[in-house]
């Protein structure tokens, strides 16, 4: 009896296993695709290095499609997938050199900057036929006027996330002022990258999202310094765990991730501050000197497949620029005002644009000043410690001389 039971159990488990594999039947999905195009590099043992944001692709968890695995299965091309936390980190890694990436996914302003600095390869659109699915209103933007260097991957907005159990009900949650609210001292999280942090500060001051001159940057820096004692931590993806656990009460972050967090912790909610927010597009690009340009273009094309785009955006929560994917998504998702906000919100939102070199440097300097700022530090410590060092050196020298004298007896 025991043996039969064990066998039945094993069979049941096997069945369950295969059922979950069927949850995403790759073969059925591949049938809708141009397999001749995709299998060109089969058997050639090619691999590409994809450098993307963290938590920014459907990776097979929670019954979602594992996009990279599906791509590898279809094309035989291996994907080395690593991630970065901010655009600036991506930029630093590329400039420092030595790392060879084939596909990167920067944000609009960073693409603009990289185009200016000749860091991207122009795309061969013949290798990316799925470009036809992308919403035309998201093409030809100022950062890439001829759509020569990037293909939109997602778009979205920045929202204010707050924990309804930790924030009192009569607080005004539709303003950036909430992030400077003394009531939540030590429970506020802030962006750990300069453009987003400064964007919010500038908006709070009533300035445009893209600083126009040094004076605006200085005022924003001062405002951010005021906020610093209230901030629990400057985070990027670390925010997921913190908000989910209720570690912090308010934080700004990207709309797609806000939806993921709300899913994990229903106590959370998102709002659009009335001062206006940032709307962004992230685009797939190929860095200059990439070794596998054609395979990279194949990867980009794969991302634009209707089903793949839909699976991606469904998992990561961001909004899709792909019209065909939009049709495949549940009405529940497409009617969500956080992911697909009203026209009113969109018209109140601004895109980041690439800044001039001078303004970039000023922003960088301000950001560094903010991070290094320590109000508990007084300048008196410097000469005091130097004095101590000098006294110590003198004492040591004197001691040595005295020892020598003693020993010379």
């Amino acid at each position, binding site marked *: 009896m025991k043996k039969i039971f064990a066998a039945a159990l094993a069979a049941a488990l096997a069945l369950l296993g295969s059922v979950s594999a069927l949850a995403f039947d790759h073969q059925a999905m591949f049938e809708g695709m141009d397999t001749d195009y995709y299998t060109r590099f089969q058997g050639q043992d090619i691999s590409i290095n994809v450098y993307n944001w963290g938590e920014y692709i459907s990776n097979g968890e929670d019954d979602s499609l594992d996009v990279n695995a599906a791509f590898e299965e279809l094309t035989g091309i291996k994907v080395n997938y690593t991630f970065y936390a901010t655009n600036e980190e991506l930029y630093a890694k590329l400039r420092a050199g030595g790392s060879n990436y084939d596909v990167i996914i920067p944000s609009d302003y960073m693409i603009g900057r990289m185009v200016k600095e000749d860091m991207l390869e122009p795309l061969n659109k013949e290798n990316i036929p799925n470009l036809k699915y992308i919403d035309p209103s998201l093409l030809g933007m100022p950062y890439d006027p001829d759509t020569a260097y990037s293909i939109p991957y997602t778009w979205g907005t920045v929202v204010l996330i707050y924990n309804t159990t930790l924030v009192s009900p009569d607080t005004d949650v539709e303003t950036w002022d909430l992030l400077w609210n003394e009531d939540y001292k030590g429970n506020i999280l802030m962006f750990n990258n300069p453009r987003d942090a400064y964007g919010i500060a500038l908006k709070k001051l009533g300035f445009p999202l893209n600083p126009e001159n040094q004076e605006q940057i200085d005022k924003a820096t001062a405002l951010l310094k005021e906020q610093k004692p209230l901030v629990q931590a400057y*985070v990027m993806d670390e925010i997921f765990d913190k908000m989910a656990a209720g570690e912090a009460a308010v934080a700004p972050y990207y709309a797609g991730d806000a939806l993921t967090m709300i899913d994990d912790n229903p106590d959370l909610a998102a709002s659009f501050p009335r001062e206006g927010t940032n709307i962004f597009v992230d685009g797939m690009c190929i860095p200059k000197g990439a070794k596998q340009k054609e395979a990279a273009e194949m990867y980009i094309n794969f991302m634009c497949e209707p089903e793949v785009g839909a699976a991606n955006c469904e998992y990561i929560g961001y909004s899709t620029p792909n019209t065909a994917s939009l049709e495949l998504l549940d009405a529940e998702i497409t009617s969500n005002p956080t992911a697909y906000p009203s026209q009113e919100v969109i018209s109140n939102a601004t895109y980041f644009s690439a800044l001039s070199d001078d303004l970039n440097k000023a922003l960088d300097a301000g950001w560094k000043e903010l991070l290094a700022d*320590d109000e508990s530090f007084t300048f008196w410590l410097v000469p005091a410690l130097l004095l101590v060092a000098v006294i*110590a050196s003198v004492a040591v020298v004197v001691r040595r001389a005295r020892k020598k004298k003693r020993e010379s007896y």
Partner: protein
Amino acid sequence: MKRNHAETVLTSVPYLIWMVVFTVIPLLLVTYFAFTDETGAFTMANLSAVREYVAVIFRSIWLAFIATMLCLLIAYPLSYIISRAPQRRQRTYLLLVMLPMWINFLLRTYAWMTLLENTGIINRLLGIFGIGPLSMINTQGAVVLGMVYNYLPFMILPLYSVMTKIENSLIEAAQDLGAPRSTVFSSVVLPLSMPGVMTGITMVFVPAVSTFIISRMLGGGSNMMIGDLIELQFLGNAYNPNLGAAISLGLMILILFCMSMLNQLNEEDKEGMII
């Protein structure tokens, strides 16, 4: 009849070449980058920019100093007790001390993150007693705690190895001569353990002052230290290798200065340590 085997020196040639290429030249490169700007022209701008980060530098030194002193205070009695324990138990104690050292440094720091969070275990336990959640993480205290935790074994081991060499007979002799416990300590144990203290301080202070992981994971990004600053220039949110090289150079000089001070205080003639 001692023969001179001068040709034996030749066996070190592969190493000498390696040393020049991979140790000397990189450090020269750091100096080069520190004194040039992005076009390669000579400039002192980087070094003067370092002046702006004085607060960060002094915070690093201060926190590292506190962590080192705490390690010393905790490790000294511990090493002494272990060195006087019965032989078999000593080995077990040493094993227990060394074990955490072998677990990956990142995992250990991460472990403290989970303990110190507002909704972490410690606060939950305190909550049972009605004590409000203490904000422990993302403070300077958390960073010091992380440093002490990670580097404590590095203080224990040198102290222990020096204390085992202090023979019991010496202590007994001092006691027989009528010395009270405090004198036994200050005249016998302390001086003999000095070399270990110096080594321990070195092995804790240097990594503590230059860490960036501990300050990032436990400090919340608002308690920047020298290591964070350097990493920021190369792989982080700002790309400025020249400034990064300048700060690295400064850090190196700082450490060399501290090391030479410590070496002066250490009477023992260490082979090869000129500075």
